């Protein structure tokens, strides 16, 4: 797919994806060794984007599997298409009657029917879900398994066979092996620790917040409308904000959102008023916004609350609320 590490970088750059050698090395190895890549990092640093750009750079299809709690193989791998099966039985009713005609009694009819079972449990009635789709595609594709940490541990275990050998076993049909092994990219936000077994099968890539220069380049690429001076100011501000102790530090995604909103607002420079009115783009928590504004020297006294605050127990007035909720323990 790629000849050298340098080529990976160039081709990704063509897709407007700014990478460093570290990332390019891992991607290169993944394509060469046919090993999945596990990308970890905070939200919004371009994990998903990597898979998209890689698919674009290599000219492959991107197949995406979004993970969530309760995801099972029926959603990830394959499913029998019951309605189609039913439709076929309805339409073929006469034919079935014909086939069953020579049968003298019920058990014989059942025997004949059993011989025809394969018709109804064939690949014809199989709904391909992302993983099977990636396995059976004629050309190697890019499979993105997004936010694997949200799926259950059982699902992780289920992935192991697929990740190490690029094959899955379907009870009714047998083992499906990949015609052309896909490039698999797993992403994780580290909401929980993944199992050792999964990690062992993957190449590991840790993505963090980019340096100022890289971020500037990204802003230039993705928000072209923004002026040179403003983009520099913006990136410097963001880099400064990341140093703060925040619940959710702004990531590249937020930087770009902010840049784009500034473009929309036709801003020339980052004035204090402008910061105050657009801070909600980069701050996702009330307290974070206050901290940022303090840091930037904008008076935060009259900032509006961005959302409902949950009782934290730090404010004594919340006590009443919780007391009320706790009701009477002994009355139950």
């Amino acid at each position: 797919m790629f000849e050298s590490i340098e080529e990976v970088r160039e081709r990704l750059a063509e897709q407007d994806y700014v990478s460093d050698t570290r990332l390019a090395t891992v991607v290169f190895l993944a394509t060469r060794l046919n090993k999945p890549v596990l990308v970890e990092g905070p939200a919004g640093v371009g994990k998903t984007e990597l898979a998209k750009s890689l698919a674009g750079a290599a000219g492959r299809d991107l197949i995406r599997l979004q993970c969530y709690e309760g995801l099972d193989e029926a959603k990830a791998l394959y499913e029998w298409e019951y309605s189609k099966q039913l439709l076929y039985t309805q339409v073929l009713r006469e034919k079935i009657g014909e086939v069953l005609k020579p049968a003298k009694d019920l058990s014989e009819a059942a025997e004949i029917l059993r011989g025809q079972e394969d018709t109804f449990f064939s690949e014809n009635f199989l709904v391909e879900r992302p993983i099977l789709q990636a396995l059976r595609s004629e050309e190697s594709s890019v499979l993105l398994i997004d936010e694997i940490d949200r799926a259950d541990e059982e699902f992780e275990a289920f992935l192991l066979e697929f990740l190490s050998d690029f094959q899955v076993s379907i009870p009714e049909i047998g083992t499906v092996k990949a015609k052309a092994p896909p490039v698999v990219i797993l992403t994780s936000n580290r909401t929980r620790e993944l199992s050792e077994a999964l990690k062992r099968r993957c190449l590991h890539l840790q993505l963090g917040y980019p340096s100022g220069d890289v971020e500037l380049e990204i802003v230039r690429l993705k928000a072209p409308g923004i002026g040179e001076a403003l983009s520099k100011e913006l990136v410097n501000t963001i880099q400064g904000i990341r140093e703060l102790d925040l619940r959710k530090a702004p990531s590249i995604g937020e930087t770009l959102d902010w840049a784009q909103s500034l473009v929309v607002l036709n801003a020339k420079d980052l004035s204090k008023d402008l910061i105050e009115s657009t801070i909600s783009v980069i701050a996702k928590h009330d307290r974070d916004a206050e901290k940022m504004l303090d840091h930037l020297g904008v008076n935060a006294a009259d900032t509006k609350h961005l959302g409902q605050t949950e009782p934290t127990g730090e404010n004594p007035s919340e006590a009443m609320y919780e007391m009320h909720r706790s009701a009477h323990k002994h009355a139950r």
Partner: protein
Amino acid sequence: MDTVVNDFVQVLRDHRVRVSPAESIDALRALEQTGLGERGIVKDTLRATLVKNGEDVGTFDRLFDLFFSLRPVAEKPGARVRGHDHDHDHGPPPARLELGEESGGQKPEETEHTHDKDESTEMRKFFDEERMRPSNDVHGDAERMRLSMFSQELILNRKPGAMESALQRLTYHMRLRRSRNMFNPGGLVPNPGGEEIPLDVSAADLEGLIDHLHELEVDEAIVEQLEAQAENILKGLPELIKQMQERDKLLKKDAGDDSEVRRRALKKMLHFSASEQREMEAAVRRIARKIQGARTRRLKEDRTGRISVPHTLRHNVRYEGVPFDPVLRKRREGKPRVTLLCDVSLSTRNLSRFWLHMIYQMQSLFSKVRTFVFVADVAEVTQVLEEHDMNRAVDEIFSGRIIDADVNSDFGKAAGQFRDQFLPTINHRTTVVILGDGRNNGKWANTQALEEISQHARQVVWITPEPRWGWNLGSCDMPLYEAICDRVEVVRTVEQLGGVAEGLVKARA
């Protein structure tokens, strides 16, 4: 190449980075693909294949820089050594060894060495990256000095195998001497000045080695050369060690006053070894499977469970009511809420250390775990446990920065403070777990505060390491507190603790 990678993996393992054999094989295969041309790429490759935990990346970077940093420096800029194409040119051996620098280190000798930099980088061209042998790990047990790979190779090419054992004997002896002197077991406070390395002994070993070489009938010239080289290394050794010690001292000075030393001492006491940690993880996983929490009242769709007739009917209307697709529903297990109050005074420290580790693991299993520590004052450490990796969080808690951990424990005061500050955090769904021995050192028991806490909480469980018969001895207020708690458990082992954790939720279901 594989031995070098294996050695490196070994060093990683020594520093508690878990690397499986499959991963080191991967690393080798990956290196075949990328080649060894560029240091940065080799590093990235090894990082991607060997390190799978975010916390270990720092360790890896540090070790990589140390491991692949000992460079032989030529005496004269023109001296060419062609070790690498095996043509036995007998060039002058590398005369001096240089300590690997940690990212621009604060060594005073730095200036003296900088003008050598060019030569040394030039030298590097003649050595494959993978031949750069590790020498010296400033930070730990893997302290070993080795002759440069180059010299080993010179001889090994003539007498394959024969030399290696001899050389390794040398390495072995030196390592032995060093490690015996590096640590003083039993002492809590490491004494940074007390490490002296008796070099004469090593020199004697070297003589023995050279005799051994003569016996082996290795080419005389090479032996001589090795002798000269080894002498050079040995001559340089005291200086190197002095440098190392000085740098260590500098590093320590930078790190701060004696609280740093104290912290380190504590670290020794509190740190879990990798295997302990693994055991713990497994134990917690086992326990987690057992506790799961109380069942919620609502049924949810699930892959397993009972067939729900109404849902199945509704769902299968599209198949003319033929139940093709049964809908299964099951009660989901709810996660219990736990508030943990942990006594970190000296008397229960061992158990609370364990408990904290356990809670650290469990934070994800319970829906809400809030952890407080107390001795006489109460402080919340939930954040600390969430933000840092396990060992650091525990260090932090015992370091005395959050609360003063060295006063006598005062349960009465702690309970009072908790009631005043944190009572709103508990409600009828919360289980309060108190870990402590109830030894109040004669202070006021303040049972009212605990009673109030108990009224707000679903249940209060007290875990004490002391058996019941001990409660009557000395100033123990356990009998007073027992009346208030829903349960008091005496816990002395992991299994018992697991049992309690299990009980926590069983009572709810």
